[in-house]
Structure formats: C-alpha cells, structure tokens
C-alpha cells in the first residue's frame, strides 16, 4: 500500500509542477509587434522545415556539426551579415538551401528574436 501512496504522491507533484512550468517561470518577456511576430513565426517554421536543429543548436538543443546559433545575431565575430552569407550560399558542410530574400529575412528575424531572449548567455 505504501508503494502505491508514494507513486500517487509523486504523480500528483509531477502534475502540479508541470502546471507551474507551463504557466509560471517561463513567461514571455519579449513582446513583438504583430508584423514582426508573423516574420519570426515564418522564420521558425523555415528553421524547422529545413531541420536546422540537426546541425545547429538553440539553447543547447540540436547537433554539433554547425555552430551554436542562440547568440549568433549579436556575436561580434558573427552577426547578421555572417548569417546572411551562409543562408545565401551554404558553407563547407552546409548545403545551399536556395532560400529566397524573404525567407532569409524571416530566418534572420527568428534568430534575432532568439538572441534577444538569451540573457543568460550574455551575463556570463
């Protein structure tokens, strides 16, 4: 009986904790204008459709063949131009995905948004 009580208690704590994680402590602190939100959403969709996560990481999620992209936008060694160059032509390992200008802008908007949230990276 004790085992069932322990299991049920853990499950109850898990459900409560999940509810907290879904609603508190992960609030959206960056509020984008509607037009920018549309562009960011398009960039995110493109990022996922081309499976960029297989080679690049965002907040530690993803592969290691390509560089970490969480703060690529504000990184003095990389920045918007660096991102744009790779998106336009690919690289030594990165295939050329033949993005058009609007798609490149959307992807850059997405990476700019991700970068703007990365306070933990910039403070350390």
């Amino acid at each position, binding site marked *: 009986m004790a*085992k069932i009580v322990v299991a049920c208690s853990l499950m109850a704590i898990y459900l409560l904790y999940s509810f907290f994680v879904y609603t508190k402590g992960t609030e959206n602190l960056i509020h984008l204008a509607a037009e920018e939100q549309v562009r960011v959403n398009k960039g995110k969709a493109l990022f996922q459709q081309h499976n960029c996560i*297989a080679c690049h990481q965002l907040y530690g999620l993803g592969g290691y063949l390509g560089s970490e992209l969480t703060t690529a936008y504000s990184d003095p060694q990389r920045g918007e131009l660096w991102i744009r160059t790779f998106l336009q032509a690919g690289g030594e*390992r990165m295939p050329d995905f033949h993005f058009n200008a609007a798609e490149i802008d959307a992807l850059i908007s997405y990476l700019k948004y991700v970068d703007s949230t990365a306070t933990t990276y910039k403070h350390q």
Partner: protein
Amino acid sequence: MALHLSISQSPVAHKAVKALLLLAITYLLFGLLLGVIGGFQYILPPFLKEQLAFHKTRPLHVYLVIAWLFTAAQAGIYYYLPTAIRPLFWPQGVWLHFILQAAVSVLIITCFFMGYFGGREYLEFPPWLGIFVLLPWVPFAVNFFFTLKPDYKNAPVYVWSWSTGIIFFFITLSESYLWLFSSFGNNIIRDVTIQWKALGSMVGSWNMLIYGTGMYIMEKMSGDSKACRSPLAFFFYFLGLTNLLFNWGHHTYIVPAAPWIKTVAYIISMTELLILAHIILQWRKTMTRARKTYHSIPYRLLSFADAWILLNLTLAIAISVPAWNFYTHGTHITVAHAMGSTIGINTMLLLASVFYIIRKENPGLLEKKKKISGYGILITNISLLVFWISLLGSGMERISGKLNNEVFYTIMKKSRSWFNLFAYSGIVVLLGLVILLAVAISVIRSKPGIPDVSDMYHGAN
C-alpha cells in the same frame, strides 16, 4: 505447468515476437550505419553533402537507434509476459503492433530521405506523424495491462518499471507537441524548457522499459525472486522515477527560465549520487559475479552494462553541476553521455535480453556461436570506450576554444584528430555489434531447437 515455450506463448504471438525482434535488430544495424556515415561527415565535409547531408543522416540515425531501444524492449516484454505470468491477452495484437510499427517507420524514413521535416530534436519528422508513432504502443499497452492485470501491492519492481515506461511514453510524447499551441510555440523560453522537460522524461520512459527488462532477466537467471521485491529495489525504483519526473531541468541551466526550475533540477540530479554510491559499494560483488558467470553471454553483457552505468553516471553527475554544465553543455561531452547511455548501458541490456531469449529458444545453436559472440562483446566495448573518450576529448577542445574566444572554424579544425578517432572507432563499434547481431539473427531464423525451460514460471506473481 507448460513444458514448452510455444505452449505458454501462442504460436501467433511467438512468430510476431520474433518478427518484432528482427525489426528491432534491423533498426539498430541501419541506425549504426547512418551513425558511421554521420561521423565521416565530420572529417570529410563534402561526403554525401548533396545526396544525404548531415541534416538527413542525423535524424535517420537518431530515429533508428531510438526505435531499436523501444522495439527491442517491447519484443522482450511480449516474450516474458506469457513465460512469467499467463498467455498474452491479445496475441493478434502483437502482429498489429508489428505492422503499425513497420508502416510508421517506412513513412518516417521516407520523409527524412525526401527532406520533409518537423525539425524538433529527437522528433525530426513532420508533426502529424507524432500520432502515428503512438499507434503501435496501443496494442502493446493493451496486451501489457490486460495480460498482467497488475496487482501493484505485490508485483515485483520490474512490473512497476515497465508500467511506468509505457504510461510515461504516452504522456511525454503528447507533451512534446505542446509547441503546436501558440502560447507555447511563440515563446522560445517556454518552448525550449518544455521540450527539454518532455524529452528528458521521454528518455526516462524507455529507460524504465529497458531497466525493467534487465531486472527481469537478472531475476530469472539468478533464480532469486526476492531481490526484485525487496525494499532496496523499490527505493531505487522510486529514486529513478523521481529523476524521470524532475531531473530534466539540468538541461535548462542556460535557458533564462525562473531559477526555481534549475534549483529543483540540481537537487534531484544530485540524488543520483545515492545510486552511484550504491554501485560502488556493490562493485566488488558485481565483479565476483561477473567472473563467476563470464561463460554466460547474457551475464557478460549485463556486466559490461554495469561498468557503463558507473562511467556514465559519474559523467552525468559531473555535468549536472551548474558551474561545469555552463561549459560542457552544447559540446560533445553531452554526446558522450548520450552514447554511453544508448550503446553502453541500454544496448548492452537489450542485447542481454535478446541473447537470453535466443538461448531459451535454441541453446544448442547459441552454444556453438559462443566464442564469436564473446569477440563481438569485447570488440564493441573496447571500441566504445575509445569512441566515448574521443567525444570527451572533442568536448574539451570546444570548451578550450570557447574560453580562448576562438571562432567555430578554428575549434573544428583543432578538434580534427578527435573527430578522426570517433569516426574510425565508430566503424569498430559497428563491426563488434554486427558480429553480435549476426549471431542473434542466425539463431532467431534457425529451425527450433530443444528449448531451455529451466526458469519458466520462476517467480510468477
């Protein structure tokens, strides 16, 4: 009491279980092959860049290896339930499971080859396929719960472990698709936090299936049915369950979520020290057992899994310390942890299960192939150790590069010798496992021998 396996297991289910085992082995073979191709794409950048670039090889490798883990565990559970408990509730359900599983895999693999992605870590197939991934689990869950009709007051710990694995696969896979709702998907912090939460616990769910299987065969081989009902076994089960539920947060130290999420994760992660201490205290006993039972292939595989648990748990605890995690996260040190867990622990435990099953089915034929199987185990584990060290080395190189503010290209260039080591040792890991899997396939596909029924119904509940 039954005298033959095919009496306790209906012939329909028996054939389906063999088919599932062969499907699982096929997943592993192709998963390893794609892993080797991916490894070579590190050292030869143009290698298959246009035909099968890394953004295709990695998801194929990841999907196939994960599919090996849960399919081999499920096949084992289907095999063990009628042996330990009673005939399967729904024998035809095993075929339905096999057909659904194979069909979903064909769909997913086709999508990857065609470049049709969902672009989420681990679940890189299009989101609509997520529901299809769950479908094969339905006949499995029906068979498990209706055959077992678990009496949790008296059930051994592996029944708890299996039940947890099944329930949490449904929960965590569903949770991993919360991003489809805008309040989750449009907020990167919540999206990434919940992605780590769902995936961390999902890994825990299939680990529960696999560890349950390991405990089951250990009980059957040792003949000691008390160990899996002891308070100590349940203490470690609940500790494992607590980690499954809450320790995912150590992946999110770098995510700007609230500090309490990280504090909870840190405290829970450190409870793994108790498991580590237990393993170290038990080590001498484990070594004695390993020496005594070295003749048995399943025992030998279990002993190597024990060694990998020690190595990997030490690494896991080290990288859960926030100050170290800041540097190790996003480097190949995390991959070393993943590979040590997937191949060193999980694959060794599952191969122990596969060899336990084939030994029961045709002990005579396996006996003839014991020597070559032994070589396969040794080659796999020695090369895996080299592979694991090369990943750690590559991770250290990246940390050093980051500390020296080097650009990505320079870090990759400096890591080249480590990449060479992991690409070539990866081939040897593949070779070692191919030897073992070839033995397993030949025994599974052979004509039935005289089965070993020595431990049937031992410890039935």
